[in-house]
């Protein structure tokens, strides 16, 4: 490869900070004890866990390190928050309220609970992906025991009005759980000021290791364990702690909090450069979510190139040394278009061409320029292969991004040719 690859998928994971890696090392080999043990090996490690809890609390403005529960990752933290609050409060009510654009670990935990007699209401978002507070108020009933709204969206970077949601939750006396896996370490979080009762995040999104997740829980919020067989985490999460990862995650959290202003400022500038460059160089491109600014995560660029599909873009970009994620349909395992893109009302054909680029502190301006140039080439190449691009040129179909008023919509066209296919299959 002529140049080192550009990593633009910090949403999936980040490299471990060398300082963090160094801090973790002794806990694999020397300080290997089980924190539940009563001898010096155990006690030594317990102290390290205590320190990590304080560091996690520091990142999110939590007052008490005892409010930090350690899990195996963001997914487990989200499962514990949703199921733990629901089971703990089932005598009080059975209704759960969530946003339409939650992470699958929240959506599917709630879908699981619904099979056991719980009910839920999904609150819609606007075209930018921001939760509609009026609809949230309408959704609440006297049976509501949990409001689950993420801090920032993974796919489109929309930052939710969490402080307002916290206020509504406080007024109604309902527990408010906020999934901050996409935002922690990149955007300031203050659980007290935001009125958050439970908050989850995962250090591997901000230069910590994988294998550890954090659930902050205000002691006023009732929570029962969903993993049984031990007294770890005050009986709320059984199982031996992943000590090296917790130690590393704690340090990553402390560094993230201290370096947050510089990191956020750096990636925000890169985000602006990337979005402006792509808008100028690639025609018929739609950016999803809010514009670069206070309503958008500084790390996230979500876009959809019209008349082509996302996976092809991803493969060609990877070949040219640009690693991105796809929010479209034909992504390796699932054929479904992202529920987030559907929720913001994105045209199906556009959603298929969607790409998510997530920035990190090690990205450079030069890399952004390379990505813009490469993206322009990739889009041009795939449009050259696409029958839809031809039909757009011939005026048979119209653009959704910049309509010319000639021809029918891509979706109508796609439905017709798919219809032909079904007709043929019937014959």
């Amino acid at each position, binding site marked *: 490869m002529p140049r080192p690859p550009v990593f633009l998928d910090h949403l999936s994971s980040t490299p471990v900070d060398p300082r963090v890696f160094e801090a973790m090392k002794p806990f694999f080999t020397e300080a290997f004890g089980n924190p539940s043990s009563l001898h010096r090996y155990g006690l030594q490690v317990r102290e390290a866990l205590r320190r990590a809890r304080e560091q996690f609390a520091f990142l999110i403005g939590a007052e008490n390190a005892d409010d930090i529960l350690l899990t195996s990752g963001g997914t487990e933290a989200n499962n514990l928050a949703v199921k733990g609050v629901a089971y703990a409060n089932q005598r009080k009510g059975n209704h759960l309220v969530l946003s339409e654009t939650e992470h699958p670990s929240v959506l599917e935990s709630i879908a699981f609970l619904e099979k056991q007699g719980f009910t839920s209401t999904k609150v819609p978002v606007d075209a930018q992906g921001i939760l509609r507070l009026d609809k949230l108020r309408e959704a609440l009933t006297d049976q509501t025991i949990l409001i689950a709204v993420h801090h920032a969206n993974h796919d489109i970077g929309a930052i939710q009005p969490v402080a307002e949601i916290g206020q509504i939750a406080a007024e109604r006396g309902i527990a408010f759980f906020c999934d901050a896996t996409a935002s922690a370490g990149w955007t300031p979080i203050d659980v007290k000021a935001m009125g958050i009762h439970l908050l989850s995040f995962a250090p591997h999104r901000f230069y910590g290791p994988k294998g550890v997740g954090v659930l902050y829980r205000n002691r006023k919020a009732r929570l029962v364990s969903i993993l049984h067989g031990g007294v770890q985490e005050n009986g709320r999460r059984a199982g031996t702690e992943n000590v090296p990862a917790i130690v590393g995650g704690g340090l990553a959290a402390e560094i993230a909090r201290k370096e947050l202003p510089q990191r956020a400022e750096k990636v925000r500038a890169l985000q602006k450069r990337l979005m402006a460059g792509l808008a100028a160089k690639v025609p018929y491109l739609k950016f999803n979510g809010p514009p670069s600014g206070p309503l958008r995560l500084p790390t996230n660029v979500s876009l959809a190139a019209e008349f082509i599909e996302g996976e092809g873009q991803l493969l060609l970009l990877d070949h040219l040394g640009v690693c991105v994620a796809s929010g479209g349909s034909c992504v390796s395992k699932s054929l479904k278009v992202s529920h987030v893109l559907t929720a913001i009302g994105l045209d199906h054909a556009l959603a298929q061409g969607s790409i998510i680029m997530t920035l990190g502190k090690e990205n450079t301006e030069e890399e952004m320029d390379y990505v813009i140039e490469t993206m322009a080439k990739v889009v041009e190449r795939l449009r050259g292969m696409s*029958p839809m691009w031809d039909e757009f040129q011939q005026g048979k179909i119209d653009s959704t991004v910049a309509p010319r008023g000639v021809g029918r919509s891509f979706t109508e066209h*796609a439905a017709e*040719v798919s219809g032909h296919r079904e007709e043929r299959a019937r014959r």
Partner: protein
Amino acid sequence: MDLPVDRFAEAHILIWDKTSPISFHRSETKMNNNKEYTLYNEKVMDHFMNPRNMGDLPSADGVGEVGAAACGDIMKISLKIEDGRIKDARFKTFGCGSAIASSSMATELIKGRTVEEAMSFSNQEVVDALGGLPPVKIHCSVLAEEALKAALEDYVKKHPEAASAPAKGEPAKA
């Protein structure tokens, strides 16, 4: 997908570490930087990166455009047919890597076949020639088969005499 066997072969080398009192052995996991890690196998990647017969035929005898409701992919195949035989084929595809590779391979396979032979073309041929597709991507090869058959039907519609030509016989319909 196949596991990169050569990577795992060198991945775990256990070393007896006599110098350390606590760690009895150390495992060295190396990442092979010389290997290209790709989503699909080499053949599929080749047909995606270097598609054969991509484009249109200005004086096509049959054109078929089909869409897949499951994933939204759209495939168009154009055929040049002379004396009941496919002289040339071209494709254009809106779709993922395996959809582009499937249409590239399908056009390669059907060139030179008679219309009758092409009528019994099966998506399995595409899958086999590509050295396999992930299960979730098999529908891409089905779409290629359907685009080809739609193009053949278009040809038969436009040239009824060719379809009923005694020497060539009736198009074989399964």
